[in-house]
């Protein structure tokens, strides 16, 4: 696909955020992490399985009229550690960032341990420590169970 064809599919956005280089198939999980669901009023474009020179296939998410905060961006690192974030103003890229995994993930993933107190109705948010960033290994602050695989399955 050349650039001309690409333009026909999705027009560039005027203001907002473009999340590029998402691993193919993870775009919907990125929306989930960002808390974007059917109730949103923003215009969202989701491109899946786009040809990429870097990784063969990739997903792209465009969120119009919303500039993602750094903490939101960093949460994306859980499922898309190689993603790049472009902040667009007046059709120009004013900022380009990579994602950096935080040391602690709060309220994003539930603990996989069904007997963990964080999976009950206590007034707490799930809290996971990042033990290793590559490969991703997380540990529940409460029950100390580790999560290393199928991280997207545990998105809240």
């Amino acid at each position, binding site marked *: 696909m050349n650039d001309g064809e690409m333009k026909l599919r999705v027009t560039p956005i005027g203001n907002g955020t473009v999340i590029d280089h998402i691993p193919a198939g993870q775009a919907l999980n990125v929306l989930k992490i960002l808390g974007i669901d059917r109730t949103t009023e923003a215009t969202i474009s989701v491109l899946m399985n786009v040809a990429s020179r870097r990784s063969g296939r990739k997903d792209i998410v465009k969120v119009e009229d919303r500039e993602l905060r750094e903490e939101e961006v960093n949460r994306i690192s859980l499922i898309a550690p190689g993603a790049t974030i472009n902040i667009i103003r007046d059709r120009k890229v004013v900022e380009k960032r990579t994602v950096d995994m935080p040391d602690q993930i709060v309220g994003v993933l539930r603990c996989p341990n069904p007997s963990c*107190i964080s999976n009950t109705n206590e007034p707490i948010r799930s809290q996971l420590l990042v033990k290793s960033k590559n490969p991703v290994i997380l540990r529940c602050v409460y029950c100390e169970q580790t999560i290393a695989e199928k991280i997207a399955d545990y998105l809240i």
Partner: protein
Amino acid sequence: MFAKRHVISMREFSREEIDSVLDLAESLEPYARGGRCEALRGNILALLFFEPSTRTRLSFETAMMRLGGKTLSLGPAEGSAMAKGESLADTIRVIGAYADALVIRHPKEGSARLASEFSPVPVLNAGDGAGHHPTQTLLDLYTIRKESRLDDLKIALVGDLKYGRTVHSLAYALALYGAEITLVSPPTLEMPDRIKADLAGNGTIVRETHALDDVLREVDVLYITRIQKERFPDPYEYQKVAKSYRIGADSLEGARDRLIIMHPLPRVDEIAPEVDGTHHAVYFRQSFYGVPVRMALLKMLIGDRLE
């Protein structure tokens, strides 16, 4: 050396911190045996047991009373009634305002950590589900130091090494002392790979075997745990395994003279009664050592805050 506000998990203890607890426990042992001590006079320890436990609850209660303090306790019946209507967080906030420290046992893993986030006073974890039980590990270490040695130790952990998390935290703690650990379990109850990997990563020598006879002659400490019948789908399989790990007087022939046998109790039939009278058996003393160890923790957490 000991700056903790709560005792939740052994993972948070350095070797120096463990040593400071064991040292203080040693100096408190005469008072654990009945000597007069008023270190925590006027203080109240609340025991919140949302799950039945005899040994641990009575041992904490004794420890507090031996230090001149008082206890109030919530039994399993009240605890479960309360658990229905109120969040644990609220219960902790309420009772934390009545007492100077809280001891908690709860069926959910991580509940003690949660309690420490909401409690205005120190929290001691007395077992959270299949999770942690740090005071058991500390009393085990105290027993090993007193009855054997912690340096250059050769220890065999025997029984259910898969589900018994007490053995996991004991193994982590022993790794801090450079112990040589032999894991003895039936193939279906082996220690999880991630724990073995953690231990090996710390440079700990870990061996694994299914046959108890092989290691009996080589170790300083045999730490026996109970193999639960429920873990086996086939009762015949259970009988076979249980029999092969049973310690009788004849199994001790050829063992080192200074070998000690430990068990967190209650035992069912892992150790024959005939072993009780031998000098190898230390499990009843081990159970008593829970008192000075818990006294040390209470004094550190409550007493040192007063001064």
